[in-house]
C-alpha cells in the first residue's frame, strides 16, 4: 500500500486542515516515505515473540486523584479557528 494524494486530501478534510497544492504534493511524499519506512517492520521475523502494547519495560504509571486547575485556558481557545461564548466553534456537522 502507498499513500496517494487522494488519501492526504481525505485526511486533511477529516482533520479540518487546508493545504495548498504544493503542500499536498510534499505531504503526500513525506507521509508515504514514513509509511514505507514503518512498513519495513513487516520484514522482521516475530515468530515466537508474544505481542506487546508497549516498547519500554515500564508499567503502572498513575496520577493521584487531585484537581489541579490549568491556568492558560485562553491559550487553548486561541488554538481554535473560531470561538463563540467561550466555546470551540465548529462547522456544521451533518447536512441534509
Amino acid at each position: 500500500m502507498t499513500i496517494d494524494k487522494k488519501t492526504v486530501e481525505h485526511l486533511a478534510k477529516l482533520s479540518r486542515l487546508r493545504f495548498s497544492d504544493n503542500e499536498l504534493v510534499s505531504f503526500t511524499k513525506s507521509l508515504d516515505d514514513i509509511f514505507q519506512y514503518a512498513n519495513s517492520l513487516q520484514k522482521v521475523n516475530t515468530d515466537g515473540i508474544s505481542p506487546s502494547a508497549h516498547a519500554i519495560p515500564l508499567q503502572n504509571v498513575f496520577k493521584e486523584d487531585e484537581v489541579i486547575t490549568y491556568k492558560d485556558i485562553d491559550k487553548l481557545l486561541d488554538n481554535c479557528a473560531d470561538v463563540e461564548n467561550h466555546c470551540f466553534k465548529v462547522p456544521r456537522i451533518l447536512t441534509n
Partner: protein
Amino acid sequence: MNWEIVIGLEIHAQMSTKSKLMCNCDASFTSEANTHICPICTGQPGMLPVINKQVVESAMMIGLATKCNIRKLNEFARKNYFYPDLPKGYQISQYDKPICENGSLEIDVNGVKRTIGITRIHMEEDAGKLVHAGSDNIKDASYSLADLNRSSVPLCEIVSEPDLRSAEEATAYAQKIRQIVRYLGVCDGNMEEGSLRCDANISVRPKGQTTLGTKTEVKNLNSFKAIEKAINIEVERQIDILEEGGEIVQETRHYNEATNSTKSMRSKEDAHDYRYFPDPDLVPLLIDDAWIKKVQDALPELPEEKKNRYMNSLSLSEYDANVITVEKETVAFFEETISFGAKPKDTVNWIMSEVLGTLNQKGIELSQTKLTPKLLAELLILIDKNTISGKIAKTILPQIIETGENAEKIVAEKGLAQVSDQGEIKKIVEAVINENAKVIEDIKGGNPKAMGFLVGQIMKRSAGKANPGIVNELLNELLS
C-alpha cells in the same frame, strides 16, 4: 407466533472522582463552558495522558461487587473516529482486554430470581458536549459549539450478556447496577444528569430458537421508565416487521420519550471501523493479587449482603429487607435509627411509610430535614413504651421533621401522653355508653361495626390519648 425477547444492556456509569481520567482537571459538572479544560483533555499536540489511579480502583470495585474476574495485564486502546466533541480524534478506552470480565448479578422480578451475566466492564473517557446553533436538530444547525468540560471525564462501561428476557427484567437489572455503584460510592447514579446512561441491544426470536435474531441498539434511555417503554416499543416494532415477512436492519436507533418511538440514527456512515490499537502513550497496567485483595477488603457491605443480614439477624421479612436497602441514604438512616434502640421492623415501617411519605408530600429528601435517626428512634421508643399511641406519633412526626424537636418534649408540651389510668378511662367509657343507647343495642344484636364506632367515640373524647388496650378491656367488661 410466540416470540422470545432478548436484551443486553450497556450502562455507562460516570465515576465520581475529583479529577478526570487522564488529566488533573476538575471532573465535576459546571455550566460555565470550557472552564475545566487543559492541554490533555483538549488534545493539544505533545500532551501526555496519565491514568487516574482512583478510576482503576473504582472499576475493580464494580467488578468485584459483580463477581467479575479482574484482569492482571491491562491495556488501553485508542478508538478512532472523527467528531467535533472528540478533540484528539480518538477516545481512550479498553478494547480486547477490559479490566473486568465474566461476572454476574442476581435480579428479582415479582419474586422470580434470575442470574444475569456481565460480559465485561471497561474504563474509558467521556467526550465533550455539543450545542447546535440555529436549531435543535443537528441537521438544520448552521454550526455547533463544543464545550470540553466533560472531555476525559472517567466512565465505566458495564456490558451485560443478552440474558434479559423482558423490559421489566432489563429495568430491574439497571436498577440493581445503579444500587451497587451508589453503595460503592463510585458513581452518584443520577440518570437525569447523565451520570448513568443506558443503551439497550434488543432482538426477538421465535420461542425455542437458539440463534439470536438481528439486533438493534437503542440509545438515549435516560430513566428507568424510558428503558422499559423503549424496549417495549422496539420489541413491538420488530415483531410487526417480522410477522409481515420483513427483515430487521442492524442499526442504532434513538428513543424519543416525547413520542414514545424509536428512530434510525445513522445509516451508511454507521459502517464504523474504529481502528482500535493499543495507545502508545499509556504504559501497561498490572494488577496483582495483593492489590485486588486490598480493594476487596475495603468493599462496603453491598445491598445483597445487607438484605441477608437483616433477614437473618434482625428477623426482617424479605419484603422489608428489600425495600429498606434500595437506597443507600435510607439504609444508613435505618441502621443508625436501630442503633439508638428502635425495633427494626417498626423502624422499616415508619421510614418507608410515614417518614418518606411526609417527605414526598413536601418534595424534599431525607438529608434535607431536621429529622435525625436519634429523633426517630426516640419517637418509636415512646410508642413502644405505650407513652403515646401510634396514631399520636403520626400526628407529631411532621413537627419533628419541621423543627427537629424531640418527641418527648412535644408530647409533654401538648399533653399527648397516652392515658393508661383505668379510673380515668372508665369515666369516659361509661359516659359514651350512656349517650349511645341505640349503639349498645346494635352491639348486643351482634353488629361488629357498632363496636368500632363506640371505640372511635371513646378515642375521640380522650383526644386519642386513651390506651386502646384498656379501652377494649373496659368495654368488654361493662357490656357483658
